[in-house]
């Protein structure tokens, strides 16, 4: 081996160990006009990994609708912002913490919550609600229970301590997540419209300030790790997982909000993925300026940290700010009061470069535009496979007498059973503004000091997406929209968390492209734009990708909280009605998967005109005070939804219907449907209104008694339903 070969091999392995491709390395050399030093290579690696650069997804994300009359800030900032009237805004975003949560579930999930909280309060908002969307592997997989308890513990541990209620979320189990669980955390905050903070640095010579925790060696290369697949040795990556300290974050939250009341902050950015690197570069890039940093000034937790380590550490609970030079002392005193680090580590320059010094020596000098605008962007090859074919099921294939025992099996299955065990570990009432607690269609939180509320829902059906990514993408958006409508709120906007496998595989990229197309169509039709989000690719272990999972977090507004709707049945004698068309769609339903252990038959298609019409009808009924309770008909179909309403309200029901195909009617997952509780004296009015709006309505049964009874079939006691519903988690 010649010496030059040896050098090349060392260099090649160094580049690859930084998650960069050789052609990307050549691009760096070309841009700099020289080879980067190790610190610079680390910086490029942090900025150009998939997690930070969106290099495979950017082209497609641009196709999503991101504007609307209530949108104040769309994607591109720390979080999106919508107008909720009276000078108030809601600030929200959802983010993934999948890879770290699989390696170390408690800390992975906890720091996921910590990260998304910082994204929201960086914008000047006080966080008021946390939500999440979680996917685990097969319930019987040996790792699943350990991962579930770790993740739930971590989410609760962080949110409970910082004192922001975790008001809801969703949990699914499927073998496709055996090697890659998904932990998507969402935070909603409230701010004043004229007090929103952004990240663009400005003012040549202004001080760049570091606040929060000290920097340690934890989480180095976290974002690079999160941009690669797992294999059998992934356990070795555990040291890249950060450790959370919710107490320090609480202090940081209060200190930042206190400083934000003063006219002191010009720009602020949290140090999340890729820490000091991405925060300083994003601030400089957005402001079209340069930043000089003296790394010797960075508060350090460990001795002898190098420039490389300081730039790549993902230590939590840190922020970077540009402040008014004459407000230094004021800012310092606020952070001192809260016992937090406050250090001026650099200044804004006109060089348009990131220049780092340490111990008097220059450690890096990189033009910002090479790092940001010249970052690689790929239009990856993709293949769109035909959706799984639709199968039309018929009555003769099913035994009607089994309907009630099938119902018990379904509501006791991990995918449909009660999540009480989870949400009771989350403080969902702190801040004393929780109006609708977990377990309804959407969580509702009052805007403090007002009589209006924010409704929030997270959702996605990965099986639908796997078998028809276009309809599945539509469904994820529509399901949150429907949940928000069912809570009596006007849906406003969404955040998305796009979890997929390896984008270098054309069929995975095809899933991504089709999900985006479906989401875009639904968002446009429903006037329900995307205002923030996150992409998590390479969710694969040993070459096996997860099901496509575009998790959606939707937010809506209830102008008058007295119009809030919940799923619990209220009064004996009222009538339960079904809104929307039922066509016995059993394909890819929970019924097939739980009872028949089958995953086929095709994803239900969504008629967006019907969604809009039926949703509007529900909101009109709410405004006219016609409804006592509302539940969207989703996973598991009509009978599962009825059981959930009965259990929540501790009311029975006498179902009286005639259908040719009872299994199809009770367990089909046709879309655009709601169950509504109506008092006897409003029944004629609602039926007349429905007829005027060309909305299908049918009477299902009368509320009362202590059981669900179905004419000609039999009955089942509420107590038995509840026992089955809570069994799986209670025996956890």
């Amino acid at each position: 081996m010649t010496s030059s070969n040896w050098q090349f091999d060392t260099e090649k392995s160094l580049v690859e160990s930084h998650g960069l491709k050789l052609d990307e390395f050549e691009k760096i050399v070309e841009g700099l006009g020289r080879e980067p030093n190790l610190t610079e290579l680390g910086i490029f690696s942090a900025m150009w990994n998939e997690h930070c650069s969106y290099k495979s997804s950017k082209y497609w994300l641009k196709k999503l609708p991101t504007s609307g009359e209530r949108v104040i800030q769309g994607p591109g900032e720390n979080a999106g912002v919508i107008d909720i009237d009276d000078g108030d805004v809601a600030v929200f975003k959802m983010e993934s913490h999948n890879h770290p949560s699989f390696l170390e579930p408690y800390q992975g999930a906890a720091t996921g919550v910590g990260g998304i909280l910082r994204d929201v309060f960086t914008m000047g908002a006080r966080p008021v609600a946390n939500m999440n969307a979680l996917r685990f592997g097969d319930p019987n997989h040996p790792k699943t229970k350990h991962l579930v308890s770790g993740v739930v513990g971590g989410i609760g541990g962080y949110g409970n301590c910082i004192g922001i209620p975790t008001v809801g979320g969703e949990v699914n189990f499927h073998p496709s997540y055996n090697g890659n669980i998904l932990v998507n955390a969402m935070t909603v905050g409230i701010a004043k419209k004229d007090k929103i903070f952004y990240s663009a640095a400005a003012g040549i010579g202004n001080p760049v300030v570091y606040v929060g925790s000290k920097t340690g060696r934890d989480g180095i290369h976290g974002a690079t790790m999160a941009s690669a697949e797992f294999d059998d040795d992934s356990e070795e990556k555990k040291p890249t997982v950060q450790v959370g300290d919710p107490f320090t974050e609480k202090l940081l939250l209060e200190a930042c909000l206190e400083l934000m009341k003063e006219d002191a902050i010009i720009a602020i950015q949290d140090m999340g993925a890729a820490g000091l690197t991405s925060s300083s570069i994003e601030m400089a890039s957005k402001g079209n300026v340069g930043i000089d940093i003296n790394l010797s000034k960075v508060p350090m937790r460990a001795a002898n940290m190098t420039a490389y380590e300081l730039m790549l550490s993902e230590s939590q609970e840190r922020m970077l700010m540009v402040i008014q030079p004459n407000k230094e002392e004021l800012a310092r005193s606020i952070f001192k009061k809260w016992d937090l680090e406050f250090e001026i580590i650099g200044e804004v320059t006109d060089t348009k470069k990131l220049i780092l010094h340490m111990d008097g020596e220059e450690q890096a000098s990189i033009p910002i535009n090479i790092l940001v605008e010249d970052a690689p962007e790929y239009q990856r090859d993709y293949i769109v496979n035909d959706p799984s074919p639709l199968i039309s099921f018929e009555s003769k294939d099913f035994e009607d007498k089994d309907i009630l025992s099938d119902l018990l099996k379904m509501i006791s299955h991990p995918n449909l059973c009660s999540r009480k065990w989870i949400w009771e570990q989350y403080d969902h009432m702190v801040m004393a503004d929780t109006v609708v607690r977990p377990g309804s269609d959407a969580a509702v939180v009052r805007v403090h000091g007002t009589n209006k509320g924010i409704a929030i829902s997270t959702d996605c059906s990965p099986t639908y997406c796997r078998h028809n990514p276009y309809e599945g993408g539509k469904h994820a958006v529509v399901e949150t929209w429907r949940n928000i409508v069912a809570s009596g709120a006007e849906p406003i906007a969404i955040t998305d968390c796009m979890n997929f496998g390896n984008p270098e595989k054309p069929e995975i990229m095809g899933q991504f492209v089709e999900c985006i197309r479906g989401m875009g169509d639904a968002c446009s039709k429903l006037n329900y734009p995307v205002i923030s989000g996150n992409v998590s690719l390479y969710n694969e272990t040993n070459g096996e990708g997860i099901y496509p999972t575009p998790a959606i977090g939707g937010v809506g507004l209830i102008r008058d909280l007295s119009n809030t709707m919940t799923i619990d049945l209220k009064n004996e004698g009222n009538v339960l009605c079904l809104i929307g068309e039922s066509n016995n769609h059993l394909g890819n339903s929970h019924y097939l998967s739980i009872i028949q252990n089958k995953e086929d038959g095709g994803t239900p298609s969504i008629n967006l005109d019907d969604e809009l019409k039926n949703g509007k009808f529900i909101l009109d009924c709410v405004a006219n005070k016609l409804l006592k309770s509302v539940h969207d008909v989703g996973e598991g179909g009509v009978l599962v939804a009825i059981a959930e309403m009965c259990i929540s309200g501790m009311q029975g029901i006498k179902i009286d219907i005639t259908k040719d195909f009872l299994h199809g009617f009770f367990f089909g997952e046709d879309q655009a449907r709601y169950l509504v509780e109506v008092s006897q004296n409003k029944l004629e009015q609602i039926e007349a209104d429905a007829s005027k709006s060309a909305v299908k309505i049918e009477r299902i049964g009368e509320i009362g008694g202590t059981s669900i009874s179905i004419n000609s079939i039999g009955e089942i006691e509420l107590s038995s339903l509840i026992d089955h519903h809570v069994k799986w988690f209670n025996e956890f």
Partner: protein
Amino acid sequence: MKTHVIVFPGSNCDRDVAVAIQNIIGSSPEMVWHKDSTIKRSDLIVVPGGFSYGDYLRCGAMASTSPIMKSVIENANKGVPVMGICNGFQILIESGLLQGALIRNSSLSFICRDIIIKPTNTKTIFTNKSKISKMPIAHNEGNYFANSNQIKEIEDNDQIAFQYCDENGDINAHSNPNGSINNIAGVFNKSKNVLGMMPHPERAAESIHGCDDGRNIFESLLS
């Protein structure tokens, strides 16, 4: 009524209890930073819930040594009503104002849900309007413990404030959410001017909370 709410680093129910005091007692409390050293004149001092100092070391242990606690203890000894809720209860125990200990829930996990409590002694300034009440708990370390001598002493002296019970007021194992000895949810000091309780009355203080039974504790203080 002049009221005070103490704010520690990590308190997170300080605003909630301030809102409840404003709504029920009718005037907003003074928020007192833990590094302040004196509370001059007060008709009620509340030590709120949360995770003071992150609950690191032991719940309430670090907060109990904060500068302001000296003044809280002095006021308590003078007969000023002092009320600790959740983490505040833990702090009052750590500071020696109340007897017993609060250990990890018997389930070993955090519990957030509605429970029902029954006032055990309704002849105090905090409980003269109390009845069987529903309100939330939200804690990891709410399992009240005291040794048999202490239990006998607090029982003999009518120092048990509230006990977990069912809808009918029956105090039984089924209605005990966290393993507390004798279902104890709250206790008084000997002279009954200091109350510590794990349930959150401030989260059951208006109709949107789904239940407003928590109001009666604040209303008792008014009469």
